[in-house]
């Protein structure tokens, strides 16, 4: 059923749907997220949460200065985060610019990492300011090079000026290119959307347009994946499942720097959308420095004393 049978794809139909969504009370949302942040996750649950978080990390390098060498090092770390401990799971994916996809895929395959997908950022990431033609080519290039996941950005300018149908149609077009070859994550850049009402609207808009995952941020600006923003997105996927029977994934990215932050995210998932979402196919964490903190906490739990950054690899 096109658009899950909830809208007909027209401007009016989309606007009506979005306008009817209940508002988000910001103070209430902040309070709920803060309360969930007080959950105390210890011992066995903490150990489970650390390994789960590692398996959900989309290990990312998105620098203008990226080179083949940098990407290859990232891939090696993605497959075997801790060279001294083979029990550490591989991460959820490797995330790079689309002109590095081929390098990543080739290297991963050569080091026993065929199970690690390559995600490419796309559609003139991070600004999203380019012609549709360029955005489409961007996506095609990534898929041809071997990307199994596409992280696209929405046009925030169009969104903030109320042209929801333009934002919608862009997602539909990119989804069409992804087809069966790649899953599509839609990045909102919540720091630019600012209000929780906007985040809720963007969530539904993206899901109706065909997103497989909704993602908070590019990681290039702050604030990014704050707990209340992720809460609102988790509520959206939870309610969308009630409406349609389909589970859409959520990816917070940016600002999740340490194990405590990551565990807070897992608690949010657990108590909002539900434990069904606690799997890499429905929840990912976009991060780079986080991985080493997860490893150090894992070491502390196994050894009983605090680790030092010297005992984890820099890449």
């Amino acid at each position, binding site marked *: 059923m096109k658009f899950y049978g909830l809208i007909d794809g027209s401007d009016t139909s989309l606007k009506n749907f979005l306008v009817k969504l209940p508002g*988000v*009370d910001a*103070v*209430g949302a902040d309070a*709920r997220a803060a309360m969930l942040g007080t*959950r105390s996750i210890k011992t066995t*649950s903490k150990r*489970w949460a650390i390994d789960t978080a590692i398996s959900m990390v989309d290990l990312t390098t998105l620098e203008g200065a990226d080179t083949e060498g940098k990407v290859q090092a990232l891939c090696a770390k993605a497959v075997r985060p801790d060279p001294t401990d083979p029990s550490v799971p591989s991460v959820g994916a490797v995330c790079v610019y689309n002109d590095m996809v081929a390098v990543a895929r080739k290297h991963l395959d050569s080091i026993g990492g065929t199970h690690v997908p390559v995600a490419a950022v796309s559609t003139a990431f991070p600004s999203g300011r380019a012609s549709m033609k360029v955005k489409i080519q961007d996506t095609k290039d990534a898929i041809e090079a071997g990307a199994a996941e596409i992280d696209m950005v929405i046009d925030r300018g169009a969104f903030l000026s109320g042209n929801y149908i333009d934002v919608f149609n862009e997602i539909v077009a990119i989804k069409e290119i992804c087809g069966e070859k790649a899953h599509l994550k839609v990045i909102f850049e919540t720091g630019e959307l600012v209000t929780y009402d906007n985040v809720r609207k963007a969530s539904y808009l993206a899901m109706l347009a065909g997103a497989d995952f909704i993602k908070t941020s590019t990681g290039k600006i702050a604030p990014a994946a704050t707990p209340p923003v992720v809460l609102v997105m988790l509520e959206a996927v939870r309610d969308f499942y009630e409406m349609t029977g389909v589970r859409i994934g959520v990816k917070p990215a940016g600002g999740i720097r340490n194990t405590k932050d990551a565990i807070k995210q897992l*608690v949010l998932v657990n108590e909002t959308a539900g*434990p069904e979402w606690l799997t890499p196919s429905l929840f990912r964490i976009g991060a780079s420095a986080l991985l080493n903190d997860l490893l150090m906490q894992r070491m502390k739990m196994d050894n009983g004393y605090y680790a030092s950054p010297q005992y984890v690899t820099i890449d």
Partner: protein
Amino acid sequence: MTFEYAPAPESRASVSIKPKYGHYIGGKFVAGEKHFPTINPATEEVLSSVALGGKKDVDAAVKSAKKALDVHWSKLSGRERGKYLFRIARILQERAREFAVLESLDNGKPIRESRDVDVPLAAAHFFYHAGWADKLEFAGVGTKAKPHGVVGQIIPWNFPLLMLAWKVAPALATGNTVVLKPAETTPLTALLFAEVCEQAGLPAGVVNIVTGDGSTGALIVNHPGINKIAFTGSTEVGKIIAESVASTSKSVTLELGGKAANLVFEDAAIDESVEGIVNGIFFNQGHVCCAGSRLIIQESISDEFIKKLQKRMEKIRVGDPLDKNTDLGAINSRAQLEKIKELSLAGDSEGAERWSPQCSLPDKGFWFAPTIFTGVTQSHRIAREEIFGPVLSVLTFRTPQEGIDKANNTPFGLSAGVWSEKGSKTLWASQKLKAGVIWTNTFNKFDPTSPFGGYKESGWGREGGRHGLTAYLKGVTHE
């Protein structure tokens, strides 16, 4: 794939409970004659043995309070009085962990609540009132206002330390001295508070603590040496107190029961409203005078809302109050548990539909699962009588005025909640609701600057804010 939270118990190591306590009178602990046990309602473990205050003890306490007033306290400037209160506030902040653990042990409430709500608010009350002590000329009470003298204060078991702060702080700030009786089932944090008074160097006899039961309370209420009574507890006892002092010149303030309505309009922010309803009735196990015990929801959204509410209730963690992840702790006493059960059975027999999420309750201790009754109407006992437990009665309304009428249709008038994204509607509802505290798009929010108290049978007077000061002064020009 489930994410089980491993036990995360707060340590009891910060607290040391004596096996036996006397009363705190004239700046020291004096032995009591008869004793009774105080237990941990989550495990039924006996925590300590406290004294049952009799005539001799109450007389001694009042005498000590009068002496402290005449000899010392009335001679201090407001500025110096205030400094003692600032010290008390800071020491409560320093010993916060200890007080939070002790409160959860004695009361049964989750450590997260005693740690994040009860203790910080208690410290804040002392800090706020400390600042009024030397500013009464700016409090709008006129130039002839004076303290009553010796005040008798009787506090309930639901927020033991916080209720102590709500009573003692303004009393002392305005120049009174105090005889305070903590509730029968929760005396321990009041007794620990005596140590704070010591550490703050508070002059002997300014605060006296006499433990006991209803009979001890009656002795205080009827004592001729007490000039003013402040009581928080049930409406039933509040009326008895009002009758007892009718032929005296004693001043009385009462903070009694409630049956608050949480009015949810169709244009509410739904997820945050669900959260607010849950907080409104399940916070502190529903042992809250201002609990939102009636959900009055606009019929057009009630089915969808109830479904969301039930799903949310499934996430409520019931269990060991000392576990940092517990949301709903133990019922404070066997007696209270029986009352909750009795009223819930009435709900069943009167035709309302009961629902609780699946939860495993411990064998020992007093426990009740979070519960909602749908299909409730005004004529049900569970819509009328205060249950004082984690039980929500759900009624519906069609038009805004009908919602208001149902909300107001009660002899109580302590609090109400209004949920709507439309500002003018929340203000309109606030104007029409007959309640002393109205929370719009939030619930159970307390602050020392914000006056709290009820209309109608929910009591007399206010606590907190500038308004709360007048209770402790006589000769207030606009009384």
